[in-house]
């Protein structure tokens, strides 16, 4: 393992410190936590707080999306481990402006339980808390006999839509209604070229041969649905879009936002090639692409690969929300 770090035990705390000192205009650390809150408090006044969080190792998710038009606060857990309820509770308190707090949770048992405990703590304080649990990864069968689908890169579309709505004064209940409407319209699927190494573990969570890839891998290296020999970008797109097409049953004329997300170790050059091939195939299929984004947004440490998210824009106001001004470390738009 080669990593730029000091003691792996302190990697999250040191990352948070680096982030806060590099971008004091965006984020501040809550005392004695790894939770961050917006520096510009006036931008939160009178609005519903929007928080998120989860294990670290997915940077810039989630703290990189703190700022006007997106999150109010975010909690950084240990690497690939959900944060603790006391820290989530600290984020809730910092985000609350008397209008309640909305939590965006990714669907993992640890995250769901810890956010749930934090909500119990906030209830005692009389802070009203509602939440959505994002489960956009279609690689996993959604059945009542499993934990269900995982939350992955599509989560950042949820942050963006809700952040824009909260900034425009949506109430807690309105945010909940919006989140529930948006959720089934966001779907993601990934392909991995190599595994991620958790600093405290020291070796990759899974390994692939030099000429091998795996479809459907999760953002913590959860196993995918098929391995095969490396193939050209166009073929990868065909496989992943095929899965998404089946999941949405999309037709010519349908309108989508598209996110190509790098997993951490894949150059932007390759991500743009992949996006080109996605756009070509969607064009051939007559699909209307109204919004595009390419880059490292929901990473998995040093995993190589990409994920592809489609967000079906069944409501015109959602495109407005995507284009709404935002000012964060990782997503800025005038």
């Amino acid at each position, binding site marked *: 393992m080669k990593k730029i770090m000091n003691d792996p035990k302190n990697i999250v705390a040191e990352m948070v410190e680096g982030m806060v000192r590099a971008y004091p205009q965006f984020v501040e650390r809550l005392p004695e936590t790894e939770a961050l809150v917006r520096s510009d408090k006036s931008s939160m006044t009178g609005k519903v707080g929007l928080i998120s969080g989860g294990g670290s190792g997915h940077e810039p998710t989630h703290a990189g999306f703190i700022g006007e038009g997106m999150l109010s606060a975010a909690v950084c857990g240990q690497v690939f481990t959900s944060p*603790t309820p006391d820290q989530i509770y600290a984020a809730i308190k910092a985000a609350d402006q008397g209008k309640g707090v909305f939590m965006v949770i990714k669907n*993992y048992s640890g995250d769901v339980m810890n956010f749930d405990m934090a909500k119990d703590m906030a209830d005692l304080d009389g802070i009203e808390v509602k939440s959505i649990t994002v489960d956009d990864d279609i690689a996993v069968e959604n059945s009542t006999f*499993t934990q269900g689908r995982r939350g992955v890169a599509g989560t950042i579309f949820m942050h963006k839509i809700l952040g824009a709505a909260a900034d425009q004064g949506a109430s807690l209940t309105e945010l909940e209604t919006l989140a529930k409407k948006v959720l089934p319209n966001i779907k993601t699927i990934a392909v991995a070229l190599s595994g991620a190494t958790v600093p405290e573990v020291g070796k990759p969570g899974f390994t692939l041969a030099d000429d091998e890839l795996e479809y459907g891998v999760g953002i*913590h290296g*959860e196993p995918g649905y098929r391995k095969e020999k490396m193939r050209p970008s166009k073929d990868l797109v065909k496989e992943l879009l095929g899965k998404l097409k089946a999941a949405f049953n999309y037709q010519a004329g349908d309108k989508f936002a598209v996110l190509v997300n790098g997993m951490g170790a894949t150059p932007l050059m390759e991500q743009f090639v992949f996006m080109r091939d996605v756009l070509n195939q969607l064009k051939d299929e007559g699909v209307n692409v109204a919004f595009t984004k390419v880059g490292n947004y929901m990473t998995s440490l040093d995993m190589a690969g990409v994920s592809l998210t489609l967000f079906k824009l069944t409501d015109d106001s959602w495109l407005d929300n995507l284009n709404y001004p935002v000012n964060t470390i990782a997503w800025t738009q005038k």
Partner: protein
Amino acid sequence: MLTTDIILTWIHDFDKKISEKKDYLSELDTPIGDGDHGNNLARGAEAIEAALNKETPADATAALRAIAMALVSKVGGASGALYGTAFLEMAKTSRDTTKTADLLAAGLAGLQKRGGATTGEKTMIDVWAPVVTATKGGQLTQKIIDDAVAATKPMRATKGRASYVGDSSIGHLDPGAVSSGYLFTSLLEAGGAK
């Protein structure tokens, strides 16, 4: 019966086992999870030791609460919420009784409320449930604990991360069941199971 002394002996021994078995627990969590169970609990064990060193608890409730808070605030993951909730429920119940069976039953109820799992889903519940039953009859033995842990091996996981790998979860011990096994072995050794 769980006196303050027994609780402290029990937990110190558990913390020791966790730090010894940290790598093994994470290894168990690798094929069917995300390889962090040992690291998560080792953080908890360290935090418990620090909390108990800082202030000697006045009574059983204070001891259980200190353990719960250390787990809740330092472990994270599914196991932090679960073990934290279990000890918090035991702390609450310890105000009314010191009977081990009642305390463990309260812990188990907390686990089930938090995680929504029942027996047979390949989780720590599969160790807690038979241990609670055996303790009620005053018969907890090492064999009961070992058998309960081993019984998770052929199960197919339907809760937690291991459920993602579906049938491939069959044939592996559940890491949370193994760590719960250590917890109850320590309890037995500390003389708290009676």
